């Protein structure tokens, strides 16, 4: 195998084996304790070759602001489902640290490939929240232009988007651009064949892709133990000659540290990396799911104690960066977006039946033109009263 330069560096500097470079830390990288204090360096779970600096206070304060907004967005959207304004919403409540860090670690020109659960990451990246909700409101499959913010359409067929991420990175690399691509998926999704193919392609073509797995312990009702018996999901990196890392997914400090380094390694030419964030889906899979069927309240409560917002609030307050005024301002920012969501989603979308035929191809085929005329004719013959569906 060709050992990437960065890996060679680590191997040399720390006197570790190439496998040690690839193998994630045995536990996980954690910087902020559950009660909101920065852990001493020797308690962060790091090993030689796996050491991380603490991000700047400025970065952390902004991350916290995004956490507050993310939580508000999750709760607002869940409420909008209950009010019938959204058809479905897969909430990332409890995973906001992952969502926020995934967006903040990227530059403008970089790309992100999210799943259905990553709406908060998508919005944090700059996509208009209402546009991001189009899929879940049900007036179109995707509401935003992937090219505008370099965010792939939120993917439902599990894991498939990782390959699109690989392709985007490959194209950029062929053109000599320094784009990094963050490819996201869940723990369950790692079992699909496309996961394997995406990681291998990225490794073989030595592409700047950071694979970011939010291990929220469940794939709908199926717990991680039925998904894999590997020591960790990050261990899967080894099989591709890739470095893996495991991080506390409720610790936005550690997430930023690990993802920032992963992105800069990738940009510098290390090839792809795999980061597993250990987190928890605090709510049901979607509003259609009943989580009490497969997990108990005690488990949920144990994770509630690790709440990502709570930890950061405590830390930033204790360091004096988060004053009541700032907290109020952040809450205001969050409320503004919640209001925007409420407003945007309270308007019934204008539906045009002809949209059915408009975008199948760049130009409709004769067959589609015929079908479009057929529907237009059918609708024109309907009673006016029936037109309002």
């Amino acid at each position, binding site marked *: 195998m060709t050992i990437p330069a960065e890996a060679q560096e680590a191997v040399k500097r720390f006197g570790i084996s190439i496998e040690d470079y690839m193998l994630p830390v045995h536990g996980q990288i954690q910087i902020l304790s559950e009660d909101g204090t920065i852990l001493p360096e020797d308690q962060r779970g790091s090993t030689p070759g796996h050491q991380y600096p603490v991000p700047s206070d400025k970065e952390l304060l902004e991350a916290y602001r995004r956490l507050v907004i993310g939580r508000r967005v999750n709760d607002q959207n869940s409420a909008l489902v209950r009010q019938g304004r959204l*058809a*479905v919403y897969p909430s990332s409540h409890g995973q906001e640290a992952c969502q926020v860090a995934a967006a903040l670690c990227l530059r403008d020109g970089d790309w992100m490939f999210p799943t259905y659960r990553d709406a908060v990451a998508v919005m944090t990246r700059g996509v208009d929240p209402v546009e991001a909700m189009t*899929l*879940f*409101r*049900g*007036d*179109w*499959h995707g509401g935003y232009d992937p090219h505008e913010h370099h965010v792939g359409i939120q993917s*439902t*067929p*599990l894991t498939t988007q990782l390959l699109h991420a690989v392709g985007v990175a490959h194209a950029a690399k062929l053109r000599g651009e320094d784009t990094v691509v963050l490819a996201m998926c869940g723990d*369950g*999704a790692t*079992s*699909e*064949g*496309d996961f394997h193919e995406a990681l291998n392609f990225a490794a073989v073509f030595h592409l700047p892709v950071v694979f970011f797995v939010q291990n929220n312990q469940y*794939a*709908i*009702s*199926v717990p991680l133990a*039925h*998904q*894999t018996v590997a020591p960790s999901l990050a261990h899967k990196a080894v099989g591709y000659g890739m470095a893996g890392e495991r991080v506390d997914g409720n610790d936005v400090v550690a997430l930023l540290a690990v993802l920032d380094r992963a992105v800069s390694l990738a940009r510098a030419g290390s090839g792809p990396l795999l980061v597993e964030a250990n987190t928890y889906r605090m709510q049901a899979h979607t509003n*259609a*799911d009943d989580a009490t*069927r*497969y997990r108990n309240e005690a488990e949920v409560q144990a994770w509630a104690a690790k709440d990502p917002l709570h930890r950061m609030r405590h830390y930033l307050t204790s360091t004096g960066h988060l004053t009541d005024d700032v907290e109020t301002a952040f809450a205001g920012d969050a409320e503004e977006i919640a209001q925007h969501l409420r407003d945007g989603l309270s308007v019934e*979308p204008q*539906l045009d*039946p002809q*949209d*059915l*035929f408009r975008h*199948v191809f760049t130009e409709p*085929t004769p*067959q*589609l033109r015929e*079908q479009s005329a057929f*529907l237009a004719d*059918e*609708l024109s013959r309907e009673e006016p009263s029936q037109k309002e*569906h």
Partner: protein
Amino acid sequence: MSTVAEAAAARAAASAGPEPVTFAKALTTAMADAMRADDGVIVFGEDVAKLGGVFRITDGLMAEFGEQRCFDTPLAESGIVGMALGMAMNGMRPIVEMQFDAFAYPAFEQIASHVAKMHNRTRGRVKLPMVIRVPYAGGIGGVEHHCDSSEAYYAHTPGLKVFTPSSVADAYRLLREAIASDDPVVFMEPKKLYWSKEAVDLAALREEVEAKAGQKAEGRAAVVRPGTDATLIAYGPAIPPALAAAEAAAEEGRSVEVVDLRTIVPFDDETVSASVRKTGRVVVVAEAQGFASVASEIVARVQERCFHSLAAPVRRVTGFDIPFPPPKLEHWYLPSADRILDALDDLQWED
């Protein structure tokens, strides 16, 4: 959804006696009964065990039969189907659930290249008594990839049987037959019918099936509404709108026969042709996009076999040749009773 509910209610009202049972319950009961009758019958897939499936079709099976006979797998459809094939080779009768239509596509190679061909390539030495259950089609407001009508992919693949019930009794009967079949069956379940109810005596059906008393449903289309002026040929999710259209046509004085294929492979040419020869006018109704579909096949067969009985070209009412629409637009896509009536009106009655 009102059409569905109405049609179901109408059918429920029509038969007297037993309690109303949902389509979902009939499927669950069919699996449970088969599992009781044969230790080799096992059920697995994504979320089928503890959760009982996202549509709750496998609800209670793990509780009754244990985690060895009803279990969750890692999230990988090719893995599920490929493993099922191996288990079927080795004495089991697996039933696997694909969570939604489009999520069976990762298993396409296993299905097309192995499940469909194993019996043939081994000259019948390896039998594959396995059932691949696929909840399919729309009408439930599902987002993209959750409402595909994928039956044509399977029906076009030689070596696969394709069943698709539209009534509660058929849900039970056909699933029992699929499980009992030594050939692999792709079992397409119209999602929107899961919650439809009919008064059906499942215990009586069980007895009938287990005593092999009644006629097999496999390969036998059912005339679900008799008529003399025109024939609607449909299956699965298209049956409720077809029945509603026939009902409406009757009010306008037109007697429309509705034929439910029940199994696409094998195909019941006899029943279909008999109806067409009688009425001379045909509309084929299917929810799937029409191009190169099962509906195309039905049209082709009907005109091949009954050409001189046809008073008008066979018409199709199918989905458009577009990706399944988002929830708020699906009503423009789904074949409605009105659209079927329009097609019936078009059958050159003036001649």
